[in-house]
């Protein structure tokens, strides 16, 4: 057992960062949601972002989203890379005029005071072929380190956004490494009781890397992809956008696993991405019509 460390740290723990961001954005007027209960590749896939960014209704939300990128697994051996990590996601529609200042203030809430740092907005335009989505914006650098993606959505599920939402995606592990001055993700202090990131996720990284790269049953996965796709289509026929979108998310995650298992050939790859995009487009357009009707 590690020796109990007094919580006299002069920095925020991983969970402090989450709490503080939630508190900050809650005060700003965001609905604080919980993570979506399906495997997703990024916070953007949460229906609270993907679908809610469509249609005329204003929307403000913030949430933590565990995200999975099977191909990024490194069996816990790489100090900067994980197949499962956390994003803190803020989505606001329409984008407010002073969003830049609002964002910069949120950094003070997690111990990054703009006055003492070099905060830079570096061009980074975003695109997601599976979601049929695109946006313009920046990656925000703090002293040379990318800490946030700042994006104005222009298109989502193939549909032009109107009004435009702004999406802020904080990379929680990176931010914590920055404020806690750690060189290795696994050394991040999770709480004030001496629990580190390693204690929570090291074994999981090892086992899931092994699953993602070596053991996921590709035959089952291929079957599941087909099932999710056909279920999605049948739900789209019934105009059930949210359940249909769930199936789209499942298909997307299965595709990522298949990709990491190395069974998707070059020629097939674009085909799979197009199939998922079709599901996303279908879900998006049915969601949108539900928004306009009411």
């Amino acid at each position, binding site marked *: 057992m590690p020796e109990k460390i007094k919580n006299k740290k002069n920095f925020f723990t991983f969970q402090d960062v989450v709490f503080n961001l939630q508190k900050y954005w809650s005060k700003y007027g965001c609905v604080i949601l919980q993570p979506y209960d399906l495997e997703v590749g990024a916070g953007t896939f949460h229906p609270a972002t993907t679908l809610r960014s469509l249609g005329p209704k204003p929307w403000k939300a913030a949430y933590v989203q565990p995200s999975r990128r099977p191909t990024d697994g490194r069996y816990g051996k790489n100090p900067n890379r994980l197949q499962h990590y956390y994003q803190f996601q803020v989505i606001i529609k329409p984008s407010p*005029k002073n969003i830049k200042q609002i964002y910069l203030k949120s950094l003070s809430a997690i111990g990054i005071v703009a006055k003492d740092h*070099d905060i830079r907005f570096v*061009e980074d335009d975003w695109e997601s072929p599976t979601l049929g989505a695109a946006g313009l914006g920046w990656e925000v650098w703090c*002293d040379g380190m990318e800490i946030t993606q700042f994006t*104005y959505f222009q298109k989502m599920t193939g549909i032009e956004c109107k009004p435009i939402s702004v999406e802020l995606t904080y990379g929680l592990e990176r931010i914590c490494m920055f404020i806690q001055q750690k060189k290795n993700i696994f050394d991040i202090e999770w709480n004030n009781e001496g629990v580190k990131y390693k204690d929570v996720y090291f074994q999981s990284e090892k086992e899931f890397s092994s699953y993602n790269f070596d053991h996921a049953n590709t035959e089952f996965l291929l079957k599941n992809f087909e099932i999710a796709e056909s279920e999605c289509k049948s739900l789209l026929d019934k105009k059930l956008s949210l359940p249909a979108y769930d199936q789209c998310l499942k298909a997307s995650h299965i595709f990522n696993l298949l990709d990491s298992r190395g069974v998707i050939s070059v020629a097939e790859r674009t085909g799979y991405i197009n199939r998922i995009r079709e599901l996303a487009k279908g879900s998006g357009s049915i969601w949108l019509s539900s928004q306009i009707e009411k």
Partner: protein
Amino acid sequence: MSELLVELFSEEIPSNLQIHTRQQLENLLKQNLSSSNLKPKSLEVFSTPTRLTIHITGLPKIIKIPAAEIKGPKVGVPESVIDNYAKSKNLNVSDLQKKDTEKGIFYFAKVKGKEISTDKELEKIIPQTLKDINWKKSMKWSDFELNWGRPLISILAIFNEKFLKFNFAHLESVNFTMLENNDQIKQIKVKNFNDYLNLLEQNEIILDHNKRKEYILKKIVSIYKKKSCKEIINQSLLTEVSNLVDKPNVITATFDKSYLELPKEIIKSTLQTHQRYFTLIDIKDRMLNEFIIVANNKDEKKLIKTGNERVVEARLSDANFFWNRDKSFNLIKQINKLKKVVFYENLGSVYDKTQRLRKMAYFISDQLNINKEKLEIAASVSKSDLVSDLVSEFPELQGEMGKYFALNQGFEQDVSNAISEHYLPTGNSSSIPKKPISYSLSILDKLDNLVGFYLINEKPTSSKDPFALRRSAIGLLRTIIENNLVIKISDLIDYFTRIYLEQGVQEKNTQLKKELMTFLRERMKNILKEKKVRTDIIEASISSHTNDNFLELYKKTLIMNKFISKELGKNAVSTYKRASSILEQEKLELKNGPDAVLFKEEEEKELFERINIIRKAFTIKEERKNYEEHLKLLSDTKLSTDKFFEKVKVNDDNNDLKNNRLELLQILCSTFNTFVDFSKLEGS
């Protein structure tokens, strides 16, 4: 002096958009001012990431529009046309006058002279100019309709200390600028440009992008001097960095010396490409474990310096981790993984490409007489580094990394070099590969691209060349020329096509070879133009070029260009012109060549002999050809030709003799034309 100040304040606009929009604003303003009879004394556009600022001086307070008679429609056109014309001039039809001109009777409108105040005109011109901007990339935000580079927050407009009032999209012009202070933003009233500049300066903001660049450059150079480093500045990085900051603070920082053991390219990529820092190279060409940060804030607590150092540390340690793992990765075992990397849709994978290159190594090594085994190995592993973690982290290091891996795994030096050098040349001025294995692989790689994309009909158009095929073709030709290589490109194209088809690629272009050869010849024109060769000489060489020997084409053209206005060239051209002008007059169907039996005069025989000597000389082996000698041979026919024309009457009464003489001149001309097409040359 009168003065206009306009500031477009927005969220951070990317560097290349700033540059493009500055230029556009300047041009559009000049145009729009001049169509309102306004000629400024000076017109400047400055930018920082958040500001596009226009400063114009020397505009009059009042625009005088002189009285004039303006010609309108012709008398007799439909009434509606006349009505509209009158309306456009704010007149009644009865106010128009008819006048006789050379081209008939026309309506004329008499327009009175008037005076418009410049500020009213500017209130129209400025929003119009903003509307005219054509952003290379733009976006919408919130619930507005406006498209701009990044969200536009406010428009400050002041003319001669007076606030100009206009609307642009959802915005109204204002008389204040915005000042950001960390997470605060304030509005500050501005009187004039000087006032505005002072305000910015007080806040340490350098508005003028050129001054900002100079400031940063001076700081960097002084650091280089102090540390006895080479003063080589990455200009594009400097431009980008100076557009990323408005209050530059140049800081020197260090990283752990142990990382200097990494390949230099990795460090450079990490520091320059990924982090936008400047590297330091000493006069002995050694990299220092230091770098220069251009920050956008003061660093009172030294947090910026240490923060950046930690980022570099993390990135280099990441690179180090990958390097240590990748360098021992067996390049040959990686080849199979290339099956997962797309070369291009419908052209298979990169694995397929390496297989083509390997098979082609057999043919080209035969042609160029180089080591076949080595080239095959180099071709096989040439793309293996693409699946390494290092290259997926640093895509710009493709090839470079492969070379290091290969050296690390005991591949021979020339094979290893080929892995990085086969990507050369990367641009029109970049160097070409000089070593046999490298240049052979480079030629194959580029030809593979050309054949592949032509095969599926993805050819470049005048405006679009998404696969950089022009660059590939020019690179290929330069590699051939600058290495003095005689290559049967036509055969190589055939082999490549066959292998592509064997691999199951669908052929969508049956004219591939013809089109590709024409494409290569067109690129050859570019290369020759760059060498300042006279256009008619380029035309003359290209149009006589029917084979696939581009080295020959190149050498002949240069020789022709060198001697065209000297004795050698003049003699050849005048001889040709003299003979061809007679043939033109006769317009005879000639086919068989002269018959020696029909030669009556000594001069005929002599000329024919000379021609035969030349024809023989032209067919010797390529390697032994000397094009200056060839031109000299042609030039030397002047003597025999002159004698021929002096002594022999072409237009003999005997038709057989006449035809035979014409045949002789014809063969003379066609011999000249196998060198270059002399008929395309101007003058003599």
